[in-house]
């Protein structure tokens, strides 16, 4: 081989080796990026192109007994600005463009001042929310104006079309976390909230999911819808009547509960003061239950009070049921009664009634008669079982959540004395919720059978409907005892302190209550009237309680007129024919 050829071959080999080396290098690099770093790079690519969205579940709707919406959902926009992006997009004419933008925004959002907007745009932030929950008209105007570096973020809001109607029954939902608080919203939050879903897919440049790419979807489960036993019309009438009565009497507050006498369903439940769940945060500092709880609590369920003379029906029913008295059993009432083992009990204003029947004890609302029955006729062993049977000292079970159980001392309690027994006979030394007291009258109205109170008539969980059926809690007293007591309570309305509650054309059975609070002066009362209508065929139980009325402090005078107005409206609304034929 010639020298030149050899040299040529050597050069050829060198070039070949160089090319080979570069190829090996490239292959090695390829291996590094495609194999060694593959998973990390694929993950980064997924993060860029694969988006996972949370699909919020629509919250369930709450209806009243007639199917009218009490709570529903709407979508409202929050308005955001991008201060940093604005300064990047308009570097040259920043001030003039900013002025134009601020003026445009202020024209749509008058609640946001121009000075605040100038300040917000001056902040070194990527995004800043300047308005929340704007109206639909405002959203449409902003969208049509197509303002730069402004965007709208939709958010679901809970809305209550009735305003403060049944507010303390419903509770509210916080828009920040879509959680329900208080009332039905809080108690049934898990059921109402449903279950969020998710949607994972590859997205395009604008963030829209691609149908051609891979995707995975978990459908959201809508929240269950609830139908309550509340009648909106009656609820409204009760709330309005309560507010007007409180205003007229100069009272601190009040509450009303209306039950179906046969089933225990709650027809209306109202408290005052109350709140508007559409603007719940503005009521954060307001209190109810005579200042002991915040205004969001339902006073009928959560505020225990000393029922006063409305408890005399319990005392009498216990004695009637055991055959120890009859409505005509009499005794002598000198205005006071002394006991060897308990302090003397006096009638209101030390009134002496002389010889009176048990019926007249109720007509006069005589403490002496009630204490006599509890102490001398019943005794602790025959009295306290009836308090337990009527459900005192334990929650009614209407709410799965917290409920005021009430309290009273029994012979087994530390510190109990016979003074407790004599005072409990006329509703002092015992605390009960308004619902517990109402259930006593429901029991009497229903022939001695206590029903389980309930507020939710049915639950529709995505097509699966479960209906609440009336449930018997227990028999508390015999039908005869209930009948006898009804007759006695009718006379309370006819001749006794319950006369202000009389409803023309109807027989009613009522008992008034004027409870004082230990430590407070005797003119600071909790005035109440409890009873049912019509007495001959009870349909509704009504309990009205007015807290610390000033114009008149007595149960009949303060709560009676409102009781009468509610009863009359109920009879008209439900077309119950009059039963007082005279």
């Amino acid at each position, binding site marked *: 081989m010639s020298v030149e050829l050899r040299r040529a071959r050597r050069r050829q080999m060198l070039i070949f080796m160089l090319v080979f080396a570069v190829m090996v290098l490239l292959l090695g690099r390829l291996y590094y990026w495609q194999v060694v770093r593959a998973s990390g790079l694929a993950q980064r690519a997924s993060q860029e192109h694969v988006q996972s969205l949370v699909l919020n579940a629509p919250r369930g709707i709450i209806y009243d007994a007639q199917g009218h919406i009490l709570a529903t959902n*709407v979508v409202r926009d929050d308005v955001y600005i991008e201060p940093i992006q604005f300064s990047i997009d308009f570097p040259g004419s920043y001030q003039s463009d900013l002025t134009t933008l601020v003026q445009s925004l202020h024209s749509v959002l008058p609640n946001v001042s121009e000075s605040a907007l100038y300040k917000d745009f001056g902040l070194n932030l990527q995004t800043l929310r300047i308005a929340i929950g704007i109206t639909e008209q405002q959203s449409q105007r902003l969208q049509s104006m197509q303002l730069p570096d402004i965007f709208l973020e939709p958010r679901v809001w809970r809305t209550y079309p009735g305003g403060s109607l049944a507010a303390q029954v419903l509770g509210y939902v916080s828009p920040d976390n879509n959680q329900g608080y208080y009332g039905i919203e809080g108690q049934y939050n898990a059921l109402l909230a449903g279950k969020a879903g998710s949607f994972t897919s590859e997205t395009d440049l604008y963030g829209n999911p691609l149908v051609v790419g891979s995707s995975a979807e978990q459908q959201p489960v809508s929240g269950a819808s609830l139908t309550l036993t509340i009648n909106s019309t009656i609820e*409204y009438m009760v709330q309005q009547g309560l507010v007007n009565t409180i205003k007229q009497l100069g009272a601190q507050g009040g509450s009303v509960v209306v039950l179906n006498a046969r089933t225990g369903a709650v027809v209306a439940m109202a408290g005052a003061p109350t709140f508007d769940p559409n603007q719940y945060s503005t009521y954060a500092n307001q209190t109810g239950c005579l200042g002991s709880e915040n205004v969001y609590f339902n006073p009928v369920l959560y505020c225990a009070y000393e029922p006063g003379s409305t408890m005399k029906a319990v005392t009498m029913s216990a004695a009637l049921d055991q055959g120890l008295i009859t409505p005509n059993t009499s005794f002598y009432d000198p205005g006071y009664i002394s006991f060897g083992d308990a302090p003397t009990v006096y009638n209101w204003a030390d009134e002496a009634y002389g010889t009176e029947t048990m019926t007249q004890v109720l007509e006069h609302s005589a403490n002496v008669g009630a204490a006599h029955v509890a102490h001398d006729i019943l005794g602790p062993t025959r009295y306290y079982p009836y308090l337990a049977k009527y459900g005192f000292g334990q929650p009614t079970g209407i709410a799965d959540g917290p409920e005021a159980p009430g309290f009273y001392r029994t012979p087994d309690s530390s510190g109990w004395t016979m003074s407790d027994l004599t005072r409990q006979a006329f509703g002092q030394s015992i605390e009960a919720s308004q619902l517990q007291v109402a259930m006593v009258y429901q029991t009497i109205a229903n022939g001695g059978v206590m029903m389980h109170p309930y507020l939710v008539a049915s639950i529709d969980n995505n097509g699966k409907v479960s209906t609440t059926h009336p449930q018997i809690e227990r028999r508390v007293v015999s039908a005869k005892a209930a009948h006898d007591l009804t007759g006695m309570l009718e006379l309370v309305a006819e001749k006794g302190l319950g006369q202000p509650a009389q409803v023309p054309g109807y027989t009613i059975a009522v008992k008034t209550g004027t409870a004082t609070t230990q430590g407070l002066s005797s003119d600071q009362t909790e005035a109440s009237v409890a009873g049912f209508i019509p007495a001959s065929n009870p349909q509704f139980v009504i309990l009205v309680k007015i807290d610390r009325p000033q114009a008149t402090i007595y149960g009949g005078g303060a709560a009676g007129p409102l009781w009468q107005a509610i009863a009359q409206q109920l009879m008209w609304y439900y077309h119950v024919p009059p039963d007082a034929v005279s």
Partner: protein
Amino acid sequence: MDRLKHRDSGSKTALPKPIVAAKRRRQLYPFFFSMGPVALSICSVLLIGLMAVLYLTQVGQAVTANQQIQNYHDEQAVLQRQNQDLAAIIAQEQSPNYIAAKAHAMGLVPEDPKAVKVIVVKHLEQMLNSVQNNQNIQP
């Protein structure tokens, strides 16, 4: 061909192989027609180009469909939102406080219960579907 045979009579059996090998170099199996390397390259490029165009067309259609679907979703969201708003408006206008306010604005006043008179009709026969059967009383 004969000259070739004559010249290389020592390798008579090896003679067909170069011809076959040469032929095979010029042909491509399993194609049923013969194609030279230039033609093959051009055809390959054309075929790959055609497939690419087809693929891109499909992707383009999918993207268009995707955009349409997205538009429908947006429209559906807007309609759902409007539906919710309308339901809320209906609920508000059905609420007793709204009706009471409207009635008040129209000059209507609540009835006076004292003005209601109860008329007693003795020996009145009850109707078949009487309200005594609790037709209007809720459970």
